[in-house]
C-alpha cells in the first residue's frame, strides 16, 4: 500500500479541521444564545431578538447585499475598479461579436430548455399515471436530478464522443448509431451552431425529471369527478386533457416553467465542463466567470452579472405574482 500514508495523514488533518470548524461554530452560536439567555431583565427581549437574527442578517449584509450593490457599481467602472467608464462595459457587450453570440445562446437556452423539459415531463407523467411500476419509472427519469452538472457533463461527453471514421471504432453511442445506419460520424460539440443544442439536451435530460415529479403530483390533484363528467359527456382522451387536466394544473405548470427558466439562465457547470464555452457555445453565466476570473476583467464580468440579474428579474416577479394570486384564491 505504498503512497497511502500521506493520504491518511491528509485525511486526519482535514477532518480535524472540519471538527474544529464545527466546534467553533457551535461555540459561537452557543455563546450568543447563552448570553441572550442571561441578559439583564431590562431589555432581555431585545437582546434575545438580536441574538436570533443578527448572525444571519450580518452574513447576508456583508456577503450578499453589499456585494450585489458593489457589483452593480463595478459594472460602470473599468477593469481596475478605479476609473468610472459609464456604460462602456455594456456598449462593449453589445458590440463584441463573441458576446453577442453568448447573449443569443442564452436566449436559445431559456427558450428551449423549459419548453422541452416541461413538455416531455408532462407527457411522461401522463403516460405513466396509474400504471404498474409507476414508482420505478419515475425514479429512472428523476435520477439525473440528483447528479451534479459536472457529472452529467461527463456522462454526455461519452455519448457525444467522436472518432474519425476509418481510423478507429466509435466509442460514443450516438456516433455508433449513426455509423450503424451508414452515416458519417459528427463532432457534436464542435460544429456550431448545433453544438449549443447538444449542450441543451444535457440540461433537458436533467430538468425533465423535476418537471415530471411536480406535474405528476399536480395531475393526481385534479378532482376525478370532473374528469369523469367530461368522459360521460363524450370527451375523448385528448379533449379530457386539454379541457380538464391542463386548466387544473395551470399554476403548477407556471411554477415548473419559471423555475426551470431561472435555473437555465444561470447554467454554468454544463458549458464549463463540456466545451469551456469554446466553439461559440458560451452563455452569460460562463462568460461572466471567464471575463472576471480568467481574464481579470472585473468591469466586464460585473456588467455580465448585472445583465444576468436583469434577465432573471422579470421571471421571478411573474412567479411571485402568480403565487400571490394563488394565495388570494385560497
Amino acid at each position, binding site marked *: 500500500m505504498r503512497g497511502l500514508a*500521506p*493520504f491518511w495523514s491528509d485525511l486526519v488533518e*482535514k*477532518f480535524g*479541521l*472540519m471538527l474544529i470548524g*464545527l466546534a467553533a*461554530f457551535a461555540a459561537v*452560536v452557543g455563546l450568543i*444564545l447563552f448570553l*441572550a*439567555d442571561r441578559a439583564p431583565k431590562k431589555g432581555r427581549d431585545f437582546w434575545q*431578538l438580536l*441574538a*436570533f*437574527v443578527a*448572525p444571519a*442578517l450580518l*452574513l447576508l449584509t456583508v*456577503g*450578499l447585499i*453589499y456585494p450585489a450593490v458593489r*457589483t452593480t457599481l463595478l459594472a460602470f467602472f473599468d477593469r481596475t475598479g478605479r476609473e468610472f467608464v459609464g456604460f462602456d462595459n455594456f456598449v462593449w457587450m453589445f458590440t463584441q461579436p463573441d458576446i453577442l453570440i453568448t447573449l443569443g445562446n442564452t436566449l436559445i437556452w431559456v427558450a428551449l430548455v423549459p419548453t422541452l423539459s416541461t413538455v416531455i415531463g408532462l407527457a411522461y407523467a*401522463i*403516460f405513466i*399515471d*396509474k*400504471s404498474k411500476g409507476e414508482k420505478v419509472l419515475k425514479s429512472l*427519469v428523476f*435520477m439525473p436530478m*440528483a*447528479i*451534479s*452538472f*459536472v*457529472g452529467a*457533463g*461527463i*456522462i*454526455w461527453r461519452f455519448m457525444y464522443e467522436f472518432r474519425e471514421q476509418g481510423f478507429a*471504432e*466509435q466509442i460514443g*453511442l450516438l456516433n*455508433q448509431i449513426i455509423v450503424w445506419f451508414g452515416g458519417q460520424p459528427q463532432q457534436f460539440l464542435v460544429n456550431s451552431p448545433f453544438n449549443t443544442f447538444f449542450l441543451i439536451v444535457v440540461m433537458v*435530460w436533467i430538468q425533465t425529471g*423535476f418537471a415530471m415529479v411536480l406535474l405528476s403530483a399536480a395531475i393526481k390533484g385534479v378532482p*376525478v369527478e370532473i374528469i*369523469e363528467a367530461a368522459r360521460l359527456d363524450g370527451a375523448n382522451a385528448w379533449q*379530457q386533457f386539454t379541457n380538464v387536466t391542463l386548466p387544473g394544473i395551470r399554476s*403548477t405548470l407556471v411554477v415548473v416553467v419559471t*423555475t426551470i427558466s*431561472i*435555473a437555465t439562465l444561470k447554467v454554468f*457547470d454544463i458549458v464549463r465542463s463540456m466545451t469551456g464555452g469554446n466553439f461559440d457555445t458560451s452563455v452569460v453565466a460562463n462568460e461572466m*466567470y471567464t471575463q472576471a476570473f480568467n481574464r481579470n476583467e472585473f468591469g466586464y*464580468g*460585473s456588467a*455580465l452579472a448585472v445583465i444576468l*440579474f436583469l434577465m432573471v428579474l422579470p421571471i421571478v416577479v411573474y412567479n411571485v405574482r402568480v*403565487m400571490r394570486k394563488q394565495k388570494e384564491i385560497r
Partner: protein
Amino acid sequence: MTDVTDKAEAKLDRPLGQKNDPRAAKLSKAANAKLKLTSPGATAAAIIIAVIWTIPTFGLLVSSFRTPDEIRSNGWWNIFVSPSFTLENYADVLTTQGASSANLGSYFVNSIVIAIPAALFPIILATMAAYAFAWIKFKGSGAIFVLIFALQIVPLQMALIPLLQIFSGVLGISGTFPAVWIAHTIFGLPLTIFLMHNFIAEIPGEVIEAARVDGANHTQIFFRIIIPLSLPALASIGIFQFLWVWNDLLVALVFSGGTADVAPLTQRLAELVGNFGRNQERLPAAAFISLVIPLIVFFSLQRYFVRGLLAGSTKG
C-alpha cells in the same frame, strides 16, 4: 406534539400551488379502475423515454468497470459481446499519488469536509432567524423578512467578485475551507430562512404560549419546542443543501483556490474532463465516485430528497 409534526409534514409533501383535497384522493381510489387512460401506445412511449433517460448513465457505469484499453478502443456496448470486469480504474483514480494522477481520494475528503459544515451552518442560523421572524414581535419584522425573500433573486454571480475581494483582502482566508463554508452559508441563507419560516410559522401558537406562561424565555423555547418539532423540515432542507453544496462547481472554483488541499470533487472532475483525450479511461470511474453519495441519498432518502427539492428548487 406528533400531531403537529404530522400536519406540518403533510404540508411539506404538498406540491407547490396545489391544494390537498382528501375527497378527491378517496374518490380517485374508487374510480381508479374505470379511468384507465393509459393506452398501449402511451406505455410504449413511456418506456422509450425511460430507456433513453437511463442509457447514458448506465453506459458510463459499464465503462467504469472495463479495462483502460477497452475504454479507449471501443464502446461500452461491446461488453455484451466480450464481457469483462475490473476495478483497476477505481483503484487508479482513488489511490495513485502524483502530479498527473487523478488523486480523487483527497478531493473526496475535501468534498465531505466542505459539504457537512456548509449544510449545517446555514440551516442552524436560518432556523434561529426564522424563529425570530415567526414568533418574536418587533418593528420592521415583516419588511426585513420580505427583503430576505427578495434576496433569492440575486444570482450568486452578483456576489462573487466583491466577496472574493473581502475574503482575500480583509479576512485573508481565500482558498481555505472556512472561505468555502462561509460562502455556501451566505448563499444558502435566503432560501433556508424562507423555508424554515414557512414551517415554523405553522407551529400552533398555543404550544408556544403555554411554554411562555410556564416562564420559558426565547432561548428555552427554541431548544425545547422549535428544534424538536422542526426536525423533519430540518432533515429535508439539510439534505437539499448538502447535495447542492456537494454538486456545486461555481462556488468551489471561485473560493477554494483549486488545489488538492481544499477543492472538491466537482472541481477536479471539471479539470479532468478539460483534457478529455488523456483522461478518457479515468473519467467513468471518477464520475461515479462523485455520483455515489448523491445516488445513495437519492435512493435511500427519496422522500426527503423530493421534499427538499420541491421546496428548494428556486435556489441559486
